């Protein structure tokens, strides 16, 4: 194994960890709310169990709450503790990472939004069919676990939620999350750089099978998966492979599978997994023809899956060394919300480690669960009512959903702001392309592509629609950027200069369309 492969594996691990950080933090919040405020009985009532209706309920809750396949690990543990059946748990676990408001908006502004709606509907059928069959085969998967004593109301009750979060951040959930990240990192060892560029063609009958093998260990956030789906549609790739990427790439990881085997044994896990494979792969072949976009000219290759492959070429190591290159890439690629998520997660881990040290002398839960001492002279105030824990949990969950909707407006700013960001990124990319600075250009082109997409979604979000005219102007700019990227990757200097000029012209028309013609 070469040095490039090992450092590449580390880079993929760290990239995955940073992308997952905000979702893992959200997952821990939800777990804390279910554990200490909602309680087992009300959680089970919310999700249902062992019925077709419960599968739909769980799918619906999963669609509403933001999450990723690593962030759902602590939640599924809590659902199991609440006595919910496996089919229902996995209906939630699979649907939560597929869509969130950010990625759903992104998907709805793609050229064929009906495909995204069809994918969402297919995911419902997948979880309903596989969950129903599994619950029918194994009806007794609900476990009974004694609930910890309730925490008295007041600040202690909120502290108890935080304590659950910090305990999970350093407990078995953390180990499973690390396993999930390790799976994605190890996958890169098996895939040479850019090796998946020509493997997902619409006319390749093995594309869905290959995607299954890649997507199960791979890790993708909902936005990453949706971005790749968009790229697959744009390149005329296999629709079935795109569906599998969404279900398994975004919805599944190694950590989740290990949790399943640990808690339900090899036989049940194998049956559940077999059912999933059967239904998902069956669907993928079924939708290949009806959902394939006919107005797209298939491209001969794509860079959409490069993030699952080795990032470094063994024969061209970074000039400043691998550690420095990894640091540079992480610094450039990491977005603000990922940095905030990572900082919050680090604080939770630190808190968890501190509690582990304190546990030897003093267990915080004992203090938290002590009943309130009410003074006999205390007056009962008319408006001083005790809000039940489940109500607080419900408000907490709704706040998370509301925050994710507010987040959409931040992530997809006004068209003017997006155009300004796009202009800055475009100047960097095109000037680097013209002057022959390959690495700089290849770094900034995806940023231009990202702002081009955010421009469209931001317009859709604020105007309620995106006209064909605006969609086409953005598509032309995206196509020119892609031509430029290919020319630079292949070392064609003259062609790159011509493509840079074409991209500049396309940008000028895009700016006119979005700033003067909305």
């Amino acid at each position, binding site marked *: 194994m070469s040095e490039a492969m090992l450092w590449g594996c580390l880079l993929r691990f760290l990239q995955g960890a940073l992308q997952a950080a905000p979702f893992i933090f959200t997952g821990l919040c939800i777990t804390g709310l279910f554990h200490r405020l909602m309680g087992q009985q009300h959680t089970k009532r919310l999700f249902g169990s062992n019925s077709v209706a419960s599968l739909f309920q769980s799918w619906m809750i999963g669609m509403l709450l933001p999450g990723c396949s690593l962030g759902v690990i602590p939640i599924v543990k809590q659902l199991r503790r609440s006595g919910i059946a496996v089919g229902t748990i996995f209906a939630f676990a699979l649907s939560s990472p597929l869509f969130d408001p950010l990625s759903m908006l992104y998907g709805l502004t793609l050229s064929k939004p009906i495909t995204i709606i069809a994918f969402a509907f297919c995911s419902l059928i997948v979880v309903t069919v596989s969950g129903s069959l599994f619950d029918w085969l194994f009806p007794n998967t609900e476990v009974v676990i004694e609930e910890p004593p309730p925490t008295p109301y007041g600040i202690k009750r909120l502290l108890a939620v935080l304590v659950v979060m910090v305990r999970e951040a350093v407990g078995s959930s953390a180990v499973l999350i690390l396993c999930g990240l390790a799976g994605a990192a190890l996958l890169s060892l098996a895939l040479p750089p850019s090796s998946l560029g020509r493997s997902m063609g619409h006319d390749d009958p093995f594309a869905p099978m290959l995607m299954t093998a890649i997507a199960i260990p791979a890790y993708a956030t909902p936005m990453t998966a949706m971005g790749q789906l968009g790229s697959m549609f744009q390149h005329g790739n296999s629709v079935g492979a795109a569906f599998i990427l969404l279900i398994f790439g975004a919805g599944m990881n190694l950590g989740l599978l290990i949790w399943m085997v640990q808690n339900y044994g090899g036989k049940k896990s194998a049956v559940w997994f077999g059912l999933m494979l059967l239904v998902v792969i069956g669907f993928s072949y079924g939708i290949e023809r009806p959902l394939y976009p006919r*107005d797209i*000219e298939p491209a001969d290759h794509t860079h959409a899956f490069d993030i699952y492959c080795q990032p470094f070429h063994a024969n061209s190591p970074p000039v400043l060394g691998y550690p420095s290159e990894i640091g540079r890439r992480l610094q450039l690629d990491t977005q603000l919300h990922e940095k905030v998520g990572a900082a919050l997660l680090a604080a939770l881990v630190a808190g968890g480690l501190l509690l582990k040290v304190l546990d030897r002398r003093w267990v915080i839960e004992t203090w938290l669960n002590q009943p309130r001492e009410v003074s006999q002279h205390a007056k009962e105030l008319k408006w001083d009512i005790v809000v039940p824990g489940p109500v607080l949990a419900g408000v907490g969950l709704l706040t998370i959903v509301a925050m994710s909707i507010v987040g959409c407006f931040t992530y997809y700013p006004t068209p003017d702001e997006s155009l300004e960001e796009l202009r800055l990124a475009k100047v960097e990319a095109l000037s680097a392309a013209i002057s022959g600075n390959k690495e700089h250009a290849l770094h900034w082109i995806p940023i231009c592509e990202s702002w081009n997409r955010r421009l469209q979604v931001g317009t859709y979000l604020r105007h309620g629609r995106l006209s*064909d*005219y605006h969609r*086409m*102007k953005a*598509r*032309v700019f995206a*196509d*020119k950027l892609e*031509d430029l990227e290919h020319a630079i990757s292949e070392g064609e200097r003259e*062609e790159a200069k*011509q*493509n840079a*000029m*074409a991209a500049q*012209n*396309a940008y000028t*028309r895009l700016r006119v*369309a979005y700033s003067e*013609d909305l």
Partner: protein
Amino acid sequence: MFRFAICVALACLPLWLSGCSATQAEAEHEHHHAHGSPPTFEGLVKRVRKQHHWAAQAASREDVKHFQRELRHFTESVGLLPELAAETDLNRADWDRANAAAKVLIAESVRLGQTKTPLADSERKSVDGAFQTLDELAAKLPAQRSDTNE
């Protein structure tokens, strides 16, 4: 090579316009060269008109093999119209007209594929209107080059 193809196509155009009937081999040669990627919106508009004519001719001759090929080329070219129009400085209203004309021609390609018969004179109005719109829009772009690479 592409410039050569354009020269050949342009050289043959007067003959074709004046009604000179080319041999089958010559016609195929011309068709072959007219199916490369067009450099401009204006070039594509001319090509679409030709391809529609060839597909209709093949349909009236009941020449199934050529009809299928010409129809496929016509459909592909029509699909490119909105994109190439977006690569020009046409304003939004004009682009919308180009897009609407392309939709009419897509409907015509579907009709042609299903009925395999050319349009009757009484039905030609919308298709002719679409071609006329495209010609007008192309004429608005006199010396302008699209950004598509040749």
